């Protein structure tokens, strides 16, 4: 049973709305899966625990005093227990809406003005080395050689826009309120929280977008009605030259297998370049590169910053290199690496 479905049934059981058939299914799943059993035991037990409260006898006395005061007409009510939520659509409400709208219009003008100023951008470009960057909103970018990204200094606040040249892999943090757009060559990519690779080197005859997970929408800049929704393990090939296109339907979508998909994004993992990166962040990337689990036992070490490059080094060599630049100890046990003071 999927964990999601298991939790759904468990929550129905707790609310006493579970059907008999579902209950039977839930019981079976719990018997078969030790982890599910542990979870359901603990959560059900937690549900049974009661908050211990002191009987509100003092309050009762006070309330009777309030009642007798009220019966003498000497009590002033301060609260209203009627549902008044519908009455608030009054002038005050109208003014609130109007002022919010005005604010938006002003902000719209201002942001338009600001975005037209070139100096409001951060520019990152690579020459012969790859680069990894985490943006303010948590979005991760692996930039391949000879590539560049440009994004506004206010990235993430009102809008998320990235201009790309060359090749990059994006792991985008989901934010429904602020969608992310990537402008590359003659297409725009709208992202909803996903990971994907864009290969748009100018030497290539086409832009290639491979989706690893999530959902993205690609739009032709020349014709905004011309768009396509890309699903995981699909690859979009869009010719750069008009002459290479076949009629109107020039979005070519290829389905690629998992092996091929891995190959497309392999360049992100084979070189590990880090610049003043905290060990706790670096460890996450090393876990990916070396397929190990890294535990750091010292809070102080976690915050320590390192710079360098790992390409063909083994995990031992990499850790040894870290040890040279900062005194630390490590143990490697199978796939578990422990780093301590």
């Amino acid at each position, binding site marked *: 049973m999927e964990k999601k479905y298991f939790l759904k049934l468990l929550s129905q059981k707790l609310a006493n709305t579970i059907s008999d058939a579902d209950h039977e299914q839930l019981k079976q799943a719990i018997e078969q899966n030790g982890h599910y059993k*542990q979870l359901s035991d603990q959560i059900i037990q937690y549900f049974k625990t009661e908050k211990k409260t002191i009987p509100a006898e003092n309050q009762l006395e006070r309330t009777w005093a309030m009642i007798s005061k009220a019966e003498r007409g000497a009590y002033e009510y301060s609260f209203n227990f009627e549902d008044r939520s519908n009455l608030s659509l009054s002038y005050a409400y109208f003014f609130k809406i109007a002022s919010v709208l005005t604010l938006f219009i002003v902000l719209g003008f201002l942001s338009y003005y600001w975005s037209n100023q070139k100096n409001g951008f951060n520019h990152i470009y690579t020459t012969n080395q790859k680069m990894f960057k985490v943006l303010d909103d948590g979005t991760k970018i692996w930039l391949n050689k000879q590539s560049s990204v440009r994004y506004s200094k206010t990235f993430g606040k009102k809008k998320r826009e990235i201009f790309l040249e060359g090749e990059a892999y994006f792991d985008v943090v989901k934010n429904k309120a602020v969608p992310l757009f990537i402008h590359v060559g003659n297409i725009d990519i709208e992202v909803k929280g996903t990971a994907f690779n864009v290969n748009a080197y100018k030497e290539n005859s086409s832009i290639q977008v491979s989706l690893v997970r999530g959902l993205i929408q690609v739009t032709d800049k020349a014709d905004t009605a011309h768009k396509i929704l890309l699903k*995981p393990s699909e690859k979009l090939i869009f010719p750069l030259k008009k002459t290479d296109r076949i009629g109107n339907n020039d979005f070519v979508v290829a389905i690629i297998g998992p092996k091929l998909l891995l190959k497309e994004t392999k360049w992100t993992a084979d070189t590990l370049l880090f610049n003043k990166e905290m060990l706790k962040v670096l460890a996450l990337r090393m876990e990916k590169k070396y397929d190990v689990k890294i535990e750091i036992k010292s809070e102080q070490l976690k915050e320590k910053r390192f710079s360098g490059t790992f390409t063909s080094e083994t995990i031992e060599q990499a850790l040894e290199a870290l040890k040279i630049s900062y005194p630390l100890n490590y143990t490697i046990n199978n796939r578990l690496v422990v780093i301590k003071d």
Partner: protein
Amino acid sequence: MPEPNKPIAALFKEIQEGSSSAFDILFLAYYNKLLAFAQQYIKQPQVAEEITSEMFVKIWLKRNTLSHIINPEVYLFIAIKNACLNHIRNDKKHHQHIVAEEETGHADVLINDQGTVMEGRELRGILDQAITTLPEQRKIIFKLIKEDGFKCKEAAEILGISVRTVESQLYKAIKTLAEALSGYLGYHPQKQNLKKKKRYTLFIIFFL
């Protein structure tokens, strides 16, 4: 929960007939629950207390109108909710948003204990802590069902939302609890990653 010996409908009837002892029973059975409910909207403890007490004052003074009420328990919670929301609406300065957060004394437990056998109380702390991180509405729904023993339908009626929303919010709250537990019970996060990968591979094969 401390059920009154008599069902609440019977208590309401006796109060309507002027029984002050029925009022006392009702008060002691529901005051703390209603106060806790009010405190989820109003962060100033004094104001929440005043709202709850004043509602009971009204119950007694308007006791001869109690007979129209179909579900007394739901009625009490709705009255508290209305008073809280009206108070927030009137209080233009919105003071209650600045008042200190709930106590979060369990955070360090999450980090310290590794491999040691945990005690029930500690585990409860972890779960209580997880509940405090829920969004307000979800927290309110969760407590109505867990602490006050309401059914989804009743919770929906109290909050003026759909039963579906209550069910899905409860599911999300349980999911948060399960995540907190998984982390604590030493369920290896890497295993979870592996599982995800497997699922993902399956997904691709499905597409091919």
